[in-house]
């Protein structure tokens, strides 16, 4: 019987995209990552993520509560690394590209609505992505259950490329996912962005 392997690709897939796990996508082991559901060595994913940031019109980082709030020293260090990554992306892209750093401070449903210019809510992440025309984003410091929900909504309703910098076992529903995220790992990604500066074709205007 001929089967087609499911790939986690930018959407819009449809209103209710399947959970990637239910389509056979497995999480990477330590030292690995996944790209579109394919398990790869972590360095390969670092390069791919850096290329993705450099080729996007609006490369964006969405830091979640686990880094936005200084729960402990590690969280504060990760926040510092996230800022460093953002500043690096800003330095390495062309003036036509518009990097953004948009927080997800908590998960409560907000009424009457969120302000998509300044924040993202996991229950309707597409609003922020549509409003800012974000075509590549990275989740970092978002609790897994909320990240899974958001990543699926994004895949269902937008064409945004999603990257997960997960502190646990990674996310099947992201197009590219790291696992065991630390401040050092985030800084390594920043190094990759620096290294690839000028070698990636910027997006067409």
């Amino acid at each position, binding site marked *: 019987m001929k089967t087609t392997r499911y790939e986690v690709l930018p959407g819009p897939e449809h209103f209710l995209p399947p959970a990637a796990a239910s389509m056979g996508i497995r999480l990477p082991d330590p030292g690995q990552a996944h790209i579109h559901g394919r398990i790869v060595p972590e360095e390969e994913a670092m390069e791919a993520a850096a290329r993705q940031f450099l080729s996007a019109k609006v490369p964006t980082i969405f830091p979640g509560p686990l880094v936005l709030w200084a729960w402990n020293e590690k969280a504060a260090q*990760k926040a510092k690394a996230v800022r460093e990554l953002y500043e690096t992306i800003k330095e390495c892209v062309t003036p036509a590209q518009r990097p953004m750093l948009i927080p997800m401070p908590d998960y409560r449903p907000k009424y009457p609505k969120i302000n998509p210019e*300044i924040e993202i809510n996991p229950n309707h992440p597409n609003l922020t992505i549509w409003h800012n025309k974000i075509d590549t984003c990275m989740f970092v410091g978002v609790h897994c259950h909320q990240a899974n929900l958001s990543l699926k909504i994004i895949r269902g309703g937008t064409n945004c490329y999603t990257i997960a910098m997960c502190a646990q076992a990674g996310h099947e529903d992201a197009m590219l996912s790291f696992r065991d995220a630390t401040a050092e790992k985030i800084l390594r990604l920043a190094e990759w962005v620096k290294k690839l500066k000028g070698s990636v074709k910027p997006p067409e205007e």
Partner: protein
Amino acid sequence: MSKERIQISPDLFDIMPAEYQDLVRRATYGKEDRGWKDIGMAKELIEEHSLCAGCPESMAFRYILASLPNPEDTVMVGSTGCTSLVFPHVAVHNIHSLFGNQNAVASGLKRALSLRFPGKIKDVVVLAGDGATVDIGLDMTLQAWFRQEKFTTICFDNELYANTGGQESGMMRKGFVAKMAPAGKMFEKVRLPEIARESGCHYVVNCTVSKPNLVEKVIKNAVYVAREIGPTYVQLYTPCILEIGKNSMEGLQEMRDAERPTERFAYKEYISDQAKELLAEIAAKEKEKKAAAKKQLAGKEA
């Protein structure tokens, strides 16, 4: 949980929405004399709410949140009703319980907190509507009082089931005709304050929320008594302006009308002897503190 623990990572402070920055910079947590006068200046007292325009419940919510003496170590337990729409906006720990179960949930919670944090003050406050308190949850409400559970029960009494369209509730007054109760209420309003007193509550108040300073005093007393002695009950009239055919700006007058001496929300208070002693002690300390502050100020001026 200490308020010092809730800090924004310095490297990402600038990207946080203003409401979160204000929450950590200017919140009233830890402020000893916090009260209703902080409303309008402190974000955790609800900047926006999802209730109807002019809803007296939104006033009551604000006054209560402003009056909690120990908000960073308070857990509120809510139940199904209009109140459950507001809790997502509130920066106080809260649990939403199954309809009517609020006092059972609060009982377990209070006991667990006492075991987990011995020697630390942890207040539990139940806030539910009249349907959850008197009709669906009456068993849980009364059993918690019988057991002398040390937490405060606040009932937002709007005298009907408001957010489902106006069905009859036990708290509805006799003869009242609601949208979903066209024949009119055939029985008297349940006298829960009296039942609370007989069930072992040490501090019981029945009033409206037309006077913020009064609400502040009542809530603080109820929390202090529950913390030290036993169950307390506060019944607040928060009329549903939509269901009684009033306009947005008429909620306050409705409450004023309902608190006249002969009306059903005339101020009523019951304090047990034990609670009286405690409140007198607190008042004396407060007086001492004020006198000392005055003296200090006079010394500075001289």
